């Protein structure tokens, strides 16, 4: 069974994003970029399934600028076998990404497609569900446990009230939540090895997919700032404040 793992190059999660002065977006010039954290978890899960003998090949796919190659090399260094870059300088929305991934899946015929549940830049949380819809496949979103057995996959999902487990027929789409696993760091020898692993270069046109934007961003602003309040000296002063707020008798 092949596993397809889409990965996205995003702002590093430790960097505080700055809104551009002209309101056109977030300033990404000279900002550290990394693999979307949820996608790292997806890569890790795919590799673990390969190590367990469930999967035979792990293919990483990225849609984005030329530098998304670095993100794919990270996936290869973690243990993916080969990579596909669908290169475009345009921002591709989740619907367009899902359409491209559906075409990749038509060629690859993977048994599982594991994606991050959301990217930490646009916070959309859509691509996995959209891909499942386009392919007519079941979806196990926000996964904290994935078990493949007898042509099915059991996915334990993090839901508002706790945990829920669903059984899906294969092939299936899984999107990862934070507690699915802890991604490994790539070792130096593996980083070196990753440089010679195959990385295919494609464009959206190769797949005949129209990725033009459906949403127009009119402006991007900073949220209303909270100003720091006061420090209270001791517990008694805090109790007085709580009483003033009407939450303590």
């Amino acid at each position, binding site marked *: 069974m092949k596993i397809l793992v889409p990965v996205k190059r995003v702002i590093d999660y430790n960097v505080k994003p700055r809104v551009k002065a002209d309101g056109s977006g977030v300033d990404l010039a000279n900002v550290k970029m990394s693999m979307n954290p949820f996608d790292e978890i997806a890569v890790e899960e795919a590799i673990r399934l390969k190590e367990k003998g469930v999967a035979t090949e792990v293919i990483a796919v990225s849609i984005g600028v030329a530098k998304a190659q670095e993100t794919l090399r990270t996936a290869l260094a973690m243990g993916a076998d080969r990579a596909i870059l669908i290169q475009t300088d345009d921002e591709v929305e989740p619907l367009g990404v899902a359409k491209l991934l559906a075409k990749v899946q038509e060629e690859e015929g993977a048994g599982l497609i594991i994606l991050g549940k959301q990217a930490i830049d646009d916070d959309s949380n859509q691509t996995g569900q959209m891909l499942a819809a386009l392919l007519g496949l079941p979806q196990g979103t926000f996964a904290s446990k994935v078990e493949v057995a007898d042509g099915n996959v059991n996915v334990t999902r993090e839901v508002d009230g706790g945990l829920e487990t669903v059984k899906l*027929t294969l092939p299936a789409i899984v999107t990862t939540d934070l507690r699915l696993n802890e991604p490994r760091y790539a070792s130096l020898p593996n980083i070196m090895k990753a440089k010679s692993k195959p990385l295919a270069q494609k464009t959206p046109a190769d797949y005949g997919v129209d990725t033009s934007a459906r949403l127009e961003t009119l402006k991007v602003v900073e949220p209303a700032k909270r100003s720091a309040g006061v420090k209270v000296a001791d517990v008694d002063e805090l109790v007085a404040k709580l009483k003033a707020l009407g939450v303590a008798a």
Partner: protein
Amino acid sequence: MSKTLVWVEHEGGVVKDATLSAVTAAGKLGEVHLLVAGQGVDGVAAEAARIAGVGKVHVADDAAFGHALAENVAPLIVALMEHHDAFVAPATSNGKNIAPRVAALLDVMQISDILSVESEDTFTRPIYAGNAIATVKSKDAKKVITVRGTAFEKAAKEGGNGVVEAVASTGDKGLSSFVGAEIAKLERPELTSAKIIVSGGRALKDGETFEQVIFPLADKLGAAVGASRAAVDAGYVPNDYQVGQTGKIVAPEVYVAVGISGAIQHLAGMKDSKTIIAINKDEDAPIFQVADYGLVGDLFKVVPELTGKL
């Protein structure tokens, strides 16, 4: 007038509050119709029909919809969308699971987690963990939207007189089935609708200490209990306690952050709280930059003292 279909989130035969915020958002787009899907949901439908401002209530009663499996529910919604201009769901785990599947089937780009309705096609939504707010305009003929509950007033639960109408089931697609759930039994108010929240961070050391320090304070205040991602990852409390970018988004009257440093991912989930109180031993912790009242001190001494004095 355009018609909007709202997904009714329900549990244990009761309409959940997140639905009420979605109804308010939908009301800004036009006539509000509801969809109640599930098994044995007559009571939910009757309750939903009483929500203020509701026109029609579509009811799909079938075992296939019993656990809101997206594979079965999405085709039902798509069928109803023939006669609606927008689909609105609360940005709950159910809404987030279902809405994008509907959007893709309709060939529509979803607008996630909206904070406001600027016009029939223009909305604001948070990006980058709420560090930026984007105003986006949709070019799609039909809209698919999820709604951030804390950003909209809840519609009144009574006062409406919706017409309940049964819709044909689209059946079980045979792709997925429900195996089981571990749903936490709530002894305290629910996080997303609580007026007061007490949250703990990694500084609480372990699960037992978390319970001993945080729970008594929460109970004194009649508060819900939340946690930072660090505390959840460390296993102090289950995942449904998590407040933050990828956990629950809350905006209570009072949010008490105990031993939480204030990573941007956590702030993203609680910075719209009306009053924020922070207790932390590190006076430079970023949480103090958003706190209305900060107390620098050892939480193991300060919190029991506070609990005792309330």
